[in-house]
Structures are given as C-alpha cells and as structure tokens.
C-alpha cells in the first residue's frame, strides 16, 4: 500500500523545497569546507597513516550528515506541516520519500567531500576502486537510513540540534567502524575478496535499519 508514485512525489517535493530554500545543502557544504580546512591545516605536510586518514574522512562525513540530514523532518515540525502530510499520505510513504531524498543529498555531499579530500590530501590515494566505490555506496545508504530514522525521532523533541549526534553516534558506530576499515583496505590496495566481510556487514546493517524503520516509524510519526 506504499505507492511508488507517492514516494516519488515526496522526493520531488523535498528537492523542490530544498532548491527554493537551500537550507540543508548550504549547511552541509559549509560544514564540509570548514572541517576539511581544519584537517588540512592540522595535517600539514605530515605523513599520516592510511588508518587515520580513513577515519578522518568518515568523521567529516558523519558530522556533516549531522548538520544537514535532520532538516527534512525538523523543518516540517517547525513549520507545522507535519499535520498536513499526515492528512495526505500514509506514514511509510513519507518516511521512504524523505529517506530517498537524504540518500541523494548525502551522495552529493560525499562526492564533494571525497573529491576534495583526495585532491587535497596527498597521502589518501585510492588503489582499489572497486572496494572504494562499493564502500561509499553502501556506507552512504546505511548512514542515510540510520540518520533519517533518528532525525524523525529528534524532530519531536525539544533540543533537536544537540540531541541528533548524541542519539545517532552509538547506533552508527558499527557502520562507521566497518566503513573506515573498508576504506583503509581500498587505500592499501587490497583485493576485492578481502573486503567481502565488510560488505556483508554493511549490507546487513542497511537491511536491519530499513526493517526497524518499517516497524517503528509509525510510532514516531503519529501523535
């Protein structure tokens, strides 16, 4: 009973809204630029290990998500249009629409962030592109799934901004650790089959997050 057409309508509405107001995109891009500058400044010309570099990349991506991915739900609550949506579509249509929007938004962010990162930090040179691309793909979907669900929760609370990373971090840690490991492998030039374990974890994380969302979103969305 979740119509694909309805989900698409929500996705398009989110994009249209974002293009008109540019709230999320601005926050995300500014955040990436700022954090990247700080990292570049502190790393300088040091030789930093691939371990650390992989970690830093995902720290940047994680906190950037925290600055922008909650807008989709928070803006509805702040403007009072949650009720409007409740009168227009079943809860899961709203959730999946906003999820797809966040996935695309995060993809755009990641392309920019990673592009800049590879360009500006010499020590971070990807050797196994297969592993790298699949990692980014699965990591983005996983991160967006968890973020969107938590965004729905905090949109109903009082201190939304600070609460978002506090709630998100513990449940995203398995994802982050896995994705950092896989990224490191891709920089070290590992063979694709060595990263299968990581991909299995990433894939199951996505499945689990989507399944949980399917079950609990109703309770979050409705009053």
């Amino acid at each position: 009973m979740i119509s694909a057409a309805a989900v698409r309508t929500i996705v398009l509405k989110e994009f249209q809204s974002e293009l008109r107001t540019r709230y999320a995109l601005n926050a995300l891009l500014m955040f990436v630029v700022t954090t990247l500058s700080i990292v570049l400044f502190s790393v300088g010309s040091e030789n930093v290990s691939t371990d650390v570099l992989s970690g830093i990349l995902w720290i940047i991506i994680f906190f950037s998500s925290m600055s922008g991915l909650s807008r989709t739900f928070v803006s509805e609550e702040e403007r009072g249009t949650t009720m409007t949506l409740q009168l227009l579509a079943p809860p899961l249509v709203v959730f999946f629409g906003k999820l797809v929007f966040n996935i695309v938004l995060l993809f755009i962010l990641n392309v920019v962030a990673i592009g800049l990162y590879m360009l500006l930090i010499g020590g971070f040179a990807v050797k196994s592109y297969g592993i790298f691309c699949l990692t980014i793909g699965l990591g983005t979907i996983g991160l967006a799934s968890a973020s969107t669900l938590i965004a729905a929760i905090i949109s109903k609370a009082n201190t939304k901004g600070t609460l978002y990373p506090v709630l998100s971090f513990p449940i995203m840690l398995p994802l982050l650790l896995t994705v950092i490991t896989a990224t490191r492998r891709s920089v070290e030039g590992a063979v694709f089959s060595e990263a299968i374990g990581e991909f299995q974890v990433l894939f199951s994380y996505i499945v689990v997050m989507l399944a949980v969302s399917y079950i609990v979103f109703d309770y979050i969305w409705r009053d």
Partner: protein
Amino acid sequence: MRDVSLRGTKLTKTYNRRNVFAQIDFEMSGTQSWAIVGRNGSGKSTLVKIIAGLLSATSGDVVLTVDGKSIRRDDQYHYIGFVSPYLQLYEEFTAHENLALFSRLRGGSLDADRVDALLRRITLHQRKDDLVRTFSSGMKQRLKYAFALLHEPPVLILDEPTTNLDAEGIELVYDIIAEQRTRGIAIIASNDKEDTERCDALIDLNAARTPDSRRPA
C-alpha cells in the same frame, strides 16, 4: 454520495495527567452535520484532531466506516477533509503547486481540472502562481478549504471554520458546509453561534466530564 459513518466510543483524552475530556460517545452517519462546542480550552481542537485520526485518544476509539468497511488509520486520509487554524501549507510553494502536490499525493496523479475548478471557487485563481508566503491570512484560510475539498471527502472536519475570513469568505464556508451535508458528514468545532446553529446534532464539551454529552441541537 457514499455510505459513511463515524462512531466514537468512550473517548477520553488526558495530557500529562490532566483530564481534557472523558467518555465522549457519538454516532455520526449519512448526511448529518455535527457541531462541537465548548469553552476555550475545553478540548474542541483536540477532539476534532482525534476524529480526523491526527491524534490518539488516551482511551476509547473512533471507527470510520465507508461503504460498510471500516477504514484503517493509515488509509483514513482518503476520506477526510480537515481545516484548522493549526493547519499549515507550504509557504515556499505557490498556491497551485501546493494543490498539485496534494492532488498527486492523495489522488495518485494530478487532476488539473479539479485543481483549477477549486481555485476558482475559492477566488484565488488570479493568485495561483504566487507564493503562499505572500498571502494574507484570509487567503491562506481559503486555500485550506481547497486542500480539504480536493478529494471530495465524505467527512469534512472544520475547526473554527470562519477564522480570518471576510463576509464573502464566510458565505463561501456556509456554502461549502451546505454542500457537504448532501455528500456526507460535516463536523464543525466552533464557539460561534452562527457557525453551529444550523447543525443537526451537538457535542457539548462544557459538560464533557459526564458520560452522556450528546444531545440534539
């Protein structure tokens, strides 16, 4: 006209241990219009939201039946039109874009003719490509009616229906209510005598702490 009924059984709402209302019963059906009256703070808006499926009651339930089938909460949006001071439209979109969005979401695809017809009825057709942000409160109120009527719902719920409206707007609202009475159920929550005097039945929330609170107008 569809066969529609709304039955409320022992509806009670408490908020943080404060009792808003208790044990409300009603049975609405066919082509009736109902008024919900009560002092400010007596829970009119709350009750109306519960009937619309926007809020859960603390205990008791509301069952919407259309053509003999009871409708799940997830599907109720097809059958309910709702206007309220708390309702907000998307201000960064134009009037037309708002209605097109609603038409696509609720109806599955854009019914351009219907959108057009409604815009004319609420006399906002000339302003259809202006951002809602630029609208006056009266214009926004009228646009809310378009939102509520777009899918020709068998149940129309109006909370404070004539807020922000001039004489013409008020005429339009009474027109809409009269029309709704031929199509299905109309529910009006208001303290304005004029709004509620033509209704068939009444729920008085001033007396809402006693079990039997329904009496005909």
